[in-house]
């Protein structure tokens, strides 16, 4: 029976592992993105249908991401030449310019470091991962999608909005939250604070579940 090596997976709250990699826009390091939010995402392969729809969708939300001080960095185990040929094809055939760099991870250094290859899905391709990294280079969100399911860009934008709202206002965001909706006030940690909480003017369902508008 074939032995399966444990996969290294960086975790939420940890520093994102540093790397240096060739991309379609030159050699980039993770640390080049310090000070910006970064969405590092992998796709299985160039010139494949679901990935093409995703790249077009990522390009479409890129202006919205830039308004949020957020950059995009794609990755697959294809070569730089393949990436360049693919993005040129997407522009020529679909009329969409891919404005962000794509890592050519031919030796699988970055994809191994980030646990992007899930051998039970594919031993040679990266699954669809999304790593949201904050300006201090801490991992804030990790998403995994199987090869057959394209990502939802509105959800990715929503996560960026939620994380930035959390950081700015020290609040949490409830299920299905979107910008403009009430946010959750962090629950009190003492009985005294719980008693006081319901008198603080928030919209409280009970002492542990209080909402406020920003």
């Amino acid at each position, binding site marked *: 029976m074939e032995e399966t090596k444990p996969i290294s997976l960086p975790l939420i709250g940890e520093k994102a592992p540093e790397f240096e990699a060739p991309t379609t*826009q*030159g*050699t*980039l*390091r993770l*640390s*080049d*993105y*310090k*000070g*910006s939010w970064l969405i590092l995402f992998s796709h299985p392969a160039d010139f494949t249908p679901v990935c093409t729809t995703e790249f077009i969708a990522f390009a479409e939300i890129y202006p919205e991401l830039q308004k949020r001080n957020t*950059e995009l960095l794609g990755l697959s185990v294809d070569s730089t030449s393949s990436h360049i040929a693919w993005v040129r094809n997407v522009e020529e055939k679909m009329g969409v310019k891919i404005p962000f760099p794509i890592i050519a991870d031919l030796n699988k250094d970055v994809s191994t470091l980030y646990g992007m290859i899930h051998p039970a899905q594919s031993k040679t391709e990266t699954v669809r991962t999304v790593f949201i990294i904050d300006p201090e280079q801490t991992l804030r969100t990790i998403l995994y999608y199987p090869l057959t399911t394209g990502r939802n860009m509105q959800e990715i934008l929503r996560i960026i909005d939620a994380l930035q709202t959390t950081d700015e206002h020290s609040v949490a965001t409830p299920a299905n939250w979107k910008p403009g909706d009430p946010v959750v006030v962090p629950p009190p940690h003492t009985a005294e604070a719980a008693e006081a909480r319901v008198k603080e003017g928030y919209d409280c369902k009970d002492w542990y579940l209080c909402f406020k508008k920003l």
Partner: protein
Amino acid sequence: MPCVSPDGKPSETGIVTLKAVQAGADTPEKVQEATGNPMFKVRSGLRDLVNAGYLELKGGKYSLTETALDAL
């Protein structure tokens, strides 16, 4: 685009960066302001230009080398 072409010469972006440094932009922040490029591109471009011998980095400040002056 990378600041240094495969033939080792500064690319169009590289020339823009070198001209910004020549005009006094000696930190990544100032180069970003001068060129309008995102910071990740500025940092990687400056690194490429240092590695290719067009820029020197001393005390956190970038300056042109003789090679860069010849290229401009």
